[in-house]
């Protein structure tokens, strides 16, 4: 047998694997561990006291409220966009795909800023809102809108390429056999994309819970009222309550770990999706 180029010697192989693992440990594992060590530095009682602070609980409630509004909205939008842009070809299709992707590339601070420009006191709709006693910026609606902007591409970006790659033959067959739109959608299309949908929803939820920059611009930072969990972390940290900041941060890190497990599961159960995902 010819000594193949890929038949790397065991020493080189261990060296490469060791170097890669060292990088993963340095850049990912050490920070992950540090969160929990700092959070429990004062013992479990101090941790529990920090996460039971009324301000922390209010921030947790607001964060979950935002996620509960934003994630289903993105699911509906993502499915509609997947159907329109995945199953059909029309002029302007690729422009729409690019516009859906745009929030990925826009700075979160810019995303928050545009909401201030629209709905702030001196913004385009500011006067109208004030006259009608409505408040968007520096209030929960602004936080929802900012989160909606930054999470906008997550579900659609997973579904559009997959629905495009799987074509329309199965749906057409269902139609020929007499299925209605909803029957076709729920019994043919949705089962085909369910893992990709879940994958997108996990990414979307993680970002919705953890968004900081965009929310920071529009929140107003009123403790107990317009503060989300990441903003509460910032306030505690800047007040030199490091242990409390890391205790609250450990809650967010726990949610992130749940997201990682769900994400790994969604990937594992969709071997067929995994290959298609890259075809745009």
């Amino acid at each position: 047998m010819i000594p193949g180029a890929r038949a790397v010697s065991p020493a080189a192989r261990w060296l490469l694997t060791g170097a890669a693992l060292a990088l993963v440990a340095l850049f990912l594992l050490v920070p992950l561990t540090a969160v929990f060590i700092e959070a429990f530095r004062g013992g479990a009682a101090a941790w529990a006291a920090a996460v039971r602070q009324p301000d922390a609980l209010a921030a947790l409630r607001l964060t979950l409220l935002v996620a509960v509004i934003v994630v289903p909205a993105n699911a509906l939008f993502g499915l509609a966009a997947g159907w329109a842009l995945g199953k059909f070809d029309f002029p302007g299709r690729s422009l729409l795909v690019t516009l859906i992707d745009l929030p990925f590339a826009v700075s979160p601070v810019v995303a928050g800023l545009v909401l201030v420009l629209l709905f702030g006191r001196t913004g385009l709709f500011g006067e109208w809102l004030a006259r009608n006693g409505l408040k968007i910026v520096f209030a929960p609606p602004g936080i929802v809108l900012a989160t909606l902007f930054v999470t906008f591409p997550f579900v659609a970006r997973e579904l559009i390429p997959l629905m495009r790659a799987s074509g329309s033959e199965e749906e057409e067959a269902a139609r020929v056999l007499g299925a209605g739109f909803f029957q076709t959608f729920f019994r043919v299309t949705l089962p085909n994309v369910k893992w990709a949908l879940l994958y997108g929803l996990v990414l979307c939820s993680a970002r919705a819970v953890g968004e900081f920059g965009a929310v920071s611009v529009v929140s107003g930072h009123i403790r107990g009222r317009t503060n989300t969990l990441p903003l509460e972390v910032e306030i505690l940290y800047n007040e030199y309550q490091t242990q409390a900041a890391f205790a609250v941060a450990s809650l967010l890190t726990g949610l992130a770990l749940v997201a990682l497990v769900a994400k790994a599961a969604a990937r594992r159960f969709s071997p067929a999706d995994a290959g298609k995902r890259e075809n745009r």
Partner: protein
Amino acid sequence: MKGSRPLPGFPVSLGVTVTGVSLVVLLPLSALVWTATTLSSEAFRATVTAPRVVASLGLSLGTAAAGATVASAAGLLIAWVLVRHPFPGRSLVDSLIDLPFALPTAVAGITLTTLYAPSGWLGRPLAALGVKAAFSPFGIVLALVFLGLPFSVRTLQPVLAALDPQVEDAAASLGATRAQAFFRILLPELVPAWLTGFALAFARGLGEYGSVVFISGNMPMRTEVAPLLIMTKLEQYDTAGAAAIATVLLGASFLLLLGINRLEAWSSTPRRSPQ
């Protein structure tokens, strides 16, 4: 591919899509451009060429480029090992790669600051070597490497997995050394995905706020990134100034996105067969 009999639901789903894109993306971003145009062109130029603004844009560009470069290099090694050299616990490590996507940026920010501060686990040995990590541009780069790592690994992995190792065997049988096989056979195939990962990490780093704001130290002219300066201008009620800087950043994002779309089209075009 597409059948002649159209599927139903096109008008409704397209309507939802266009409405969503218009309300969530187009309307806000046009408000930004509109606000920036209320400045005269001289005022716009004066705002974005002010020394503090130029310094912050330069810092954002420089640290984003450096962070994306390191993340791309580390990402290539990690993706290579994950795809080619199975080891016990690989799937666990593979899941961990996505941590920066899932971890809120504020959490990453305070954690990295604590680690790289002069008294931190990693900051102390670096300080002993005379390297200032946190509260310096180097600290910003470290945060952006953390953030950019998954972009690089995740764009390279599928391409590496799709490469046929037999091509390398063929190269070896024709007398190529391992280095020749890597640089002349593998690397050209990886370049589009590698650049895509770089561009994604760069775009993310350019606008990053949460993970950077804690570790940077936020000193005007030295460690103040552009998104932070937008925030500062906004707090000083200089909305037009904030909008002007934001427009420059938005323009850069848009160009990057166009580049990424071109790169992705390039990497999905079938390359010549190996024979």
